[in-house]
């Protein structure tokens, strides 16, 4: 326990840990000291002087060092003659702070008058107007009139795009430096800088493309004025006109909490639409931040081509039919004797959907397959991150091993939080085949060749091998807490399985499991892969064969045919295909029955994040006419088959899940809505303290316990590794990696990100490209698994010399490492 300090703020006695700053101590006591340049997640700089307060220190006798007493026996407090900044001054025992005296009020008034000298006061057209710290504080503390001469106001450019996503209004900037500091200190993308000094100061971006950061949207939340705003929300609505609906980001396994602001508008033909996404505080998950994919990647909901009616194949054509007819058809198929059923589910489904699908599948003795290229969900359920883990608690004494993951691209918020843990003193070991953004913060960087992931972890376990390995192995084994984060950089399902076994072995041998801040963490590729494992779905190494042999395949939230031509061929051999989809995907086109389903934002449900935190999300937009939720359709099919599946509400499905599924005993919707005490104490009512993010009124979710936490016996299976077979093939080895801005179905409709999408290229080392006489920017024809694709070439001296890298979901059908033949395309001479 840290030393506590007791002080008096405005007649209130407050006890806080030593080292707390006055503003925070006051905040804890419910007293708000106005700030501009201070943010609870950053180091104070004392630049704006808005937080001036009167500070008195207990007086000591110079000779004896004793506290001087007043006549009545109380300690004599001597106040400094000048005001002090509450954001930089730490508390001292016996201190007395006055925040509402005449003197401090005068101070605030003067600072505001000064800050407003060149402010344009165009609140009416400012996107921040209504949730602006400067507006609020001027109303609270500002002078009614300015003594400065109006005509001396400086005029600056008002519409400066910093990249495609963020707009700068130079006149509104109050030079608090928060944006610059956020980019430098918090997210390590130092792309913003101050340029010039004094009244001419301006914020500039020095990156190409401008403001090149995947966290750029957060600066618009913390900017205390409307100087930084998103292009996405530019003139879209006024903050008070919108309603708020809580949700969970569905773009990765972190599960960031957010709020969608919605509004009914004429522009959209009277429909209710999402106007913006804002972070919702959850100090266990995303703190106060969102990455830009989460913030800007909601536009897919407005995509027009949604399916609205069940479709049935009649005479080789899919025709709209009634729900009853479609159900009937499926029932007939399922009732036929000895059908081999396969249920293929994607990680976008909610726990409730997956549970109902699994029930239905089980009743027919079907095979429940998870559409994912990562293994290990059974292991994370047993020795995964212990209940009560929080990256924010990790620091000295914790060793974090990140293997085969480019966290910055795969799970941006985890990258941020791991980085911060490392900065707090955690031992960070990064093992990857190529450099990643985490290397900079690592104590040990280990390199291996693609394909050697598991072997690398084994070497760490043995502590033998190269110098770097022994050191890292030592550091890892000597820590108090240890966790291993594994991703899918360059891995397919086979490789992933090998890797996760090795990781599990390492953790078990070192005893890092079954306690908070210890265990295994998977960087899943979809938001609810962990939930899918928990509900009984597992990936299938021979998906092709499984689909081919199935009589009936139920495919939900997955597009195997669109992702991979081989799987499309396999599906052609499946007798009967039932697809649950929002859009007419390639798989849906091949189906015999297609059920239209609702989007995540149109329905309720729960996701289990990678950290195994179950979080619920609410209905954000009214669903469009026609589609139903997956869980409903599955339940109704189940009922036709004589099961008692629940089709009324996900709440009731969850009540069944918590009876049946291990680890979910304590999960109910009402418990998921429980709030938790969080620091910093943020509030929309005083957004000057920590920006315009929303406080969490909707519940922080529950982290479920692992088997090890519960003290159950573990069944990890054999953790012995099979030596990977040497592949005999010719051509270039291509491995899949994850890119944040890929060309996935959910991200493409966000026009604003169009320019930032990952280029469709093979990433090669110059040495490799030389071998094939390729140059940067060349176009090539790639032969992969009997198909031909045209792709670009990009050179990168950082990637390994013998393999080419290609992004997943980016137009190149790849799920695991493959060998391809390439041929250079000669550009046609221009006519």
């Amino acid at each position, binding site marked *: 326990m840290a030393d506590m300090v007791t002080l008096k703020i405005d007649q209130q006695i407050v006890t806080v840990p030593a080292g707390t700053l006055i503003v925070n101590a006051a905040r804890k006591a419910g007293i708000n000291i106005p700030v501009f340049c201070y943010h609870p997640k950053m180091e104070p700089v004392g630049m704006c002087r808005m937080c001036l307060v009167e500070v008195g220190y207990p007086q000591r006798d110079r000779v004896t060092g004793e506290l001087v007493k007043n006549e009545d026996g109380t300690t004599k407090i001597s106040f400094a003659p000048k005001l002090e900044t509450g954001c930089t001054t730490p508390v001292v025992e016996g201190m007395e702070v006055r925040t509402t005296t005449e003197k401090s009020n005068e101070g605030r008034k003067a600072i505001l008058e000064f800050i407003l000298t060149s402010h*344009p*006061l*165009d609140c*009416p*057209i400012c996107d921040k107007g209504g949730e602006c710290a400067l507006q609020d504080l001027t109303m609270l503390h500002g002078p009614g009139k300015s003594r400065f001469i109006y005509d001396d106001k400086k005029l600056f450019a*008002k519409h400066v795009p910093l990249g495609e996503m963020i707009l700068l209004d130079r006149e509104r900037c109050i030079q608090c430096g928060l944006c610059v500091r956020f980019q430098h200190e918090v997210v390590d993308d130092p792309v913003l800088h101050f340029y010039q000094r004094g009244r001419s100061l301006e914020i500039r971006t020095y990156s190409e493309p401008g403001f090149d950061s995947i966290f750029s949207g957060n600066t618009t939340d913390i900017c205390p004025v409307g100087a930084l705003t998103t292009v996405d929300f530019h*003139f879209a609505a*006024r903050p008070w006109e919108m309603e708020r609906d809580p949700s969970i980001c569905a773009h990765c396994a972190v599960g960031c909490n957010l709020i969608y602001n919605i509004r009914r508008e004429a522009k959209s033909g009277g429909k209710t639409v999402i106007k913006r996404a804002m972070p919702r505080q959850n100090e266990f998950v995303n703190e106060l931040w969102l990455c830009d994919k989460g913030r800007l990647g909601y536009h897919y909901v407005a995509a027009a081509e949604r399916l609205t009616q069940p479709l049935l194949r009649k005479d080789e054509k899919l025709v709209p039919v009634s729900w009853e007819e479609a159900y009937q058809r499926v029932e007939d198929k399922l009732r036929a004797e000895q059908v081999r059923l396969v249920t293929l589910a994607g990680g976008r489904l909610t726990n409730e959907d997956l549970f109902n699908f699994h029930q239905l599948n089980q009743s027919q003795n079907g095979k429940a397959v998870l559409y994912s290229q990562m293994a290990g969900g059974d292991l994370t359920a047993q020795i995964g991150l212990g209940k009560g883990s929080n990256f924010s608690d990790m620091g000295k004494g914790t060793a974090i091993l990140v293997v085969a993951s480019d966290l910055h691209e795969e799970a941006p918020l985890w990258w941020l939080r791991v980085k911060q843990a490392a900065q707090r003193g955690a031992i960070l070991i990064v093992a990857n085949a190529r450099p990643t953004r985490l290397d900079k913060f690592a104590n040990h960087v280990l390199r291996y060749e693609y394909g050697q992931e598991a072997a690398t972890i084994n070497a760490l376990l043995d502590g033998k091998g190269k110098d770097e390995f022994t050191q890292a192995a030592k550091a890892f084994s000597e820590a108090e807490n240890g966790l291993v984060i594994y991703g899918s950089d360059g891995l397919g399902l086979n490789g992933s399985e090998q890797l996760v076994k090795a990781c599990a072995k390492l953790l078990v041998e070192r005893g890092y499991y079954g306690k908070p801040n210890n265990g295994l963490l998977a960087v899943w590729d979809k938001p609810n892969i962990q939930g899918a494992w928990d509900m009984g779905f597992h990936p299938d190494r021979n998906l092709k064969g499984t689909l081919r042999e199935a009589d009936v395949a139920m495919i939900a939230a997955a597009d195997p045919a669109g992702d991979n031509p081989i799987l499309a061929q396999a599906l052609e051999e499946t007798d009967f295909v039932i697809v649950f989809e929002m859009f007419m995907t390639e798989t849906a086109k091949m189906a015999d029955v297609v059920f239209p389903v609702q989007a995540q934002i149109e329905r309720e449900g729960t996701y289990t994040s990678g950290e195994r935190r179950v979080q619920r999300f609410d209905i954000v937009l009214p669903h469009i006419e026609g589609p139903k939720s997956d869980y409903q359709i599955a339940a109704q099919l189940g009922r036709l088959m004589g099961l008692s599946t629940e089709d009324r509400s996900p709440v009731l499905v969850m009540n069944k899940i918590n009876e049946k599924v291990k680890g979910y005993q304590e999960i109910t919707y009402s418990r998921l809505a429980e709030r938790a005490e969080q620091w910093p104490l943020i509030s929309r009512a005083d957004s000057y303290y920590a920006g315009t993010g929303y406080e969490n009124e909707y519940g922080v979710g529950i982290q479920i316990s692992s088997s090890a936490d519960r003290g159950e016996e573990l069944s990890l299976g054999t953790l012995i590794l099979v030596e990977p077979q040497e592949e005999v093939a010719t051509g270039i080895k291509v491995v899949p990696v994850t890119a944040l801005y890929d060309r996935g179905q959910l991200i493409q409709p966000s026009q604003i990100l169009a320019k930032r999408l990952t280029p469709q290229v093979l990433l090669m080392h110059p040495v490799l490209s030389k071998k094939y006489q390729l140059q940067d920017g060349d176009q090539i024809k790639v032969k992969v698994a009997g198909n031909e694709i045209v792709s670009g070439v990009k050179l990168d001296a950082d990637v390994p010399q013998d393999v080419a890298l290609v992004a997943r979901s980016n137009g190149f059908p790849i799920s695991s490492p493959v060998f391809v033949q390439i041929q250079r395309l000669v550009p046609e001479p221009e006519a």
Partner: protein
Amino acid sequence: MLKGLFTTLKIALEKPVTTQYPEQRRPVHTRFKGRHTLKRYENGLEKCIGCALCAAACPADAIFVEASENTDEERYSPGERYASTYEINMLRCIFCGFCEDSCPTEAIVLGDQYEMSFGDRHSSIYTKELLLEPVSGDAETTPQKTKPGEFTRSVPVMQDPQD
């Protein structure tokens, strides 16, 4: 009874006080609050900048505003922002004038017009086209093509109200 009849007779011979509306119309008071108009500047640009403060101030929730961005190619109002949708539901409006008070550009003004009738609820919603006053003189109507850098400010310098 005679007395009563006499009174009737007396009144009947007096000059009638009834105004023969609609042939005769009484002038309205200076501060009368009738149907709104959206004003223009002399150069034809719209005063309204689509800030929706009127909608926020309206106690009857009668106003609906949506904003869009001006360009120099297609300029509706000075500055960056203009109202691409502006609607007032006259059935909801209580003619309190708060919208006029709250407008930072004096764009929305309650006028003299009080004759409004609608056959259905839909036509009680006055759109921007109905509310916007016609351009005066030889000024060009909106959108206008303007020189870059000419109209960069949205909110004009305001004087304290005189009357």
